[in-house]
């Protein structure tokens, strides 16, 4: 199984702060194929954004450093590349869409020019050629009247339109991997739906692999093919989409699912939150970071990080609770939805 588009193994990114070492990402592995979408789910401090920025080589050093792992993109280990090669990778092979399209655009430069600059930078096109391509790119992401809109400034665009511009910039170089970090979180729900559609279309058009980072399990259910659930810098569960929603094995995943108010619930059900507070990344235990909040904690949970256990095809989980016991516990959860036949 060597020919993944992206193959991340044992990625670890630490931050060396005045107060101690923050293990923001700790031994994370995943793969991504063309035309596939992986959703990385987690709460603040889970390491999901740091993991993506490690891929892009954008961890500020100091205080951060990718301390371990291999990041293979099409047979090339990104960790061995020079700064210059990494810059080329960022524009051409991996592109990123950020959460806040307002602060990611230059407020005093015309939108068309910003997209064109991205093209000139990475594709060595002439200015007029780049301009033409920029307008085409804007039109492709669904900006109506693109030639005129290209002459406008970011403040004349709504949030949703700005996010389209960001996508146009990101896909202008036909990237292999598109990282979208909470691309819809700052947008209104009706606009969110539009943006997710655009991302999907772009993925289809360029055969890209998409890494979608989000805290919103609804968006995950909508577009992800597989899901990596992160907690305290660790991957706790990694599985195809339906497996996560209907055959989850990790108590944290259960907790996330039963914390969600459901729009489609016919009667009012009391939520089952995860008790306690998010962990302090400076004082993560040696073992599972979920200890202290996990309602089913065992003595060995504090000792060592459990190895990955494969519970179904392509479905891995890190948990010390024996599998039969896990299934019994899960059956008692009020919200749990058994896999549909």
């Amino acid at each position, binding site marked *: 199984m060597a020919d993944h588009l992206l193959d991340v193994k044992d990625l670890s990114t630490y931050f060396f702060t005045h107060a101690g070492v923050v293990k923001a990402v700790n031994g994370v592995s995943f793969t991504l194929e063309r035309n596939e979408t992986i959703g990385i789910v987690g709460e603040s401090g889970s390491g999901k954004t740091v993991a993506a920025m490690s891929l892009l080589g954008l961890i500020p050093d100091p205080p951060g450093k990718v301390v371990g792992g291999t990041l293979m993109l099409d047979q090339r280990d990104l960790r061995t590349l020079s700064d210059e090669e990494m810059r080329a990778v960022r524009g051409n092979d991996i592109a990123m869409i950020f959460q806040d399209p307002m602060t990611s655009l230059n407020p005093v430069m015309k939108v068309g020019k910003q997209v064109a600059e991205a093209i000139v930078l990475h594709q060595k096109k002439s200015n007029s050629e780049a301009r033409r391509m920029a307008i085409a790119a804007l039109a492709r992401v669904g900006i109506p009247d693109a030639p005129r809109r290209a002459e406008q400034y970011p403040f004349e665009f709504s949030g949703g339109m700005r996010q389209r511009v960001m996508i146009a910039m990101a896909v202008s170089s036909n990237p292999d991997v598109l990282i979208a970090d909470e691309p819809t979180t700052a947008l209104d729900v*009706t606009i969110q739906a539009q943006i997710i559609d655009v991302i999907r279309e772009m993925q289809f058009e360029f055969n890209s692999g998409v890494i979608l980072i989000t805290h919103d399990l609804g968006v995950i259910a909508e577009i992800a093919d597989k899901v990596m659930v992160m907690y305290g810098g660790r991957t706790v569960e990694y599985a195809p989409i339906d497996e996560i929603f209907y055959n989850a094995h990790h108590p944290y995943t259960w907790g996330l699912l039963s914390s969600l108010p459901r729009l489609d619930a016919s009667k009012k059900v009391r939520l089952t939150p995860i008790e306690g507070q998010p962990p302090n990344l400076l004082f993560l235990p040696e073992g599972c970071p979920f200890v202290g909040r996990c309602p089913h904690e065992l003595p060995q949970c504090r000792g060592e990080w459990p190895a990955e256990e494969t519970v179904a095809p392509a479905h891995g989980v890190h948990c010390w609770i024996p599998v039969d016991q896990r299934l019994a516990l899960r059956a008692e959860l009020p919200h749990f939805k058994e896999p549909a036949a």
Partner: protein
Amino acid sequence: MSLLEVSDLRKHFPIRTGVLKRTTGWVYAVDGVSFDVEKGETMGLVGESGGGKSTVGRALLRLTPATGGNVTFEGINVMKASRGEMQKLRSDMQIVFQDPYASLNPRMRVRDIVGEGLVIHDVGTDAERKKRVAELMDIVGLSPEQAERYPHEFSGGQRQRIGIARALALNPKLIILDEPVSALDVSIRAQVLNLLEDLQDEFDLTYVFVSHDLSVVKHISDRVAVMYLGKLVEISDSAVLYDFPQHPYTEALLSAVPIPDPQTERSRKRIMLEGDVPSPADPPKGCVFHPRCPRAQEICTTAMPRHVPTPGADAGERHEVACYFPARFKDGQRFVADEPFRDALPEDQA
């Protein structure tokens, strides 16, 4: 008499331009909003940005002066309350804010933040106030010792609990919850929602819950009011909202919310709204939703439909909508009439 009666509430912000700061236009943030809230219920106020829902929350408490309309709390007109009446209202009506970081003064200890209302309203002695703060900390699930700390020593969820404790200090009857869980992580959000539900039962509270998150609003509210561009377009029992939306904007909003269930997601059809929300400084003529509405007809461009109760048992009681072509439900069948809904027509045409 309802606990809170809001009628024709309006809040227009002036747009001032130039050196002379002349008013060159108005932002119609809230434009003719009416609803009642019964004692003990939770009214959800939902909508997208520019909808005006947060402004409604603030205008109810007179934190921002309204341009027009009336707000009546227990028979007292909030808009015209005297200084003395207002002091009384301040302890009866409280607010919890969205941002757990910006809503707590970073230079005050938690005990002073939670107890500030008691000091302002001169409730009890120092010792009694201290006891009350400890009690409040306990009520919201924090330990009384933590009251000696400063806000930055707490996580987002804990800070939101502090904000709730502050709101409870004076035994209010009504609490405006302005996006109280939007800034919180999923697992913490559920904790705070459960806490709010428990407090409501325990202290017989009435809530106005303002949020952009339809799932959250539906979960916590008894009734849901949907706002669009400063207007109320639909009020519905939250139990029937998902299955029987009548206004096309509500339908689109519901269908745009992704459901955390892949199988449901694959089978759902999404109503895609074209374009963006127009500027509240230049709202469309006629029905404010008509430029984006899939059902819009000629009549929709003439005047804003009136906000009126709709018949039909399936759609629940107390169901109100402002639409000429609302969806109707009969014997489990959904249909839209060809003729405009008579009750919604402006008075001179009806």
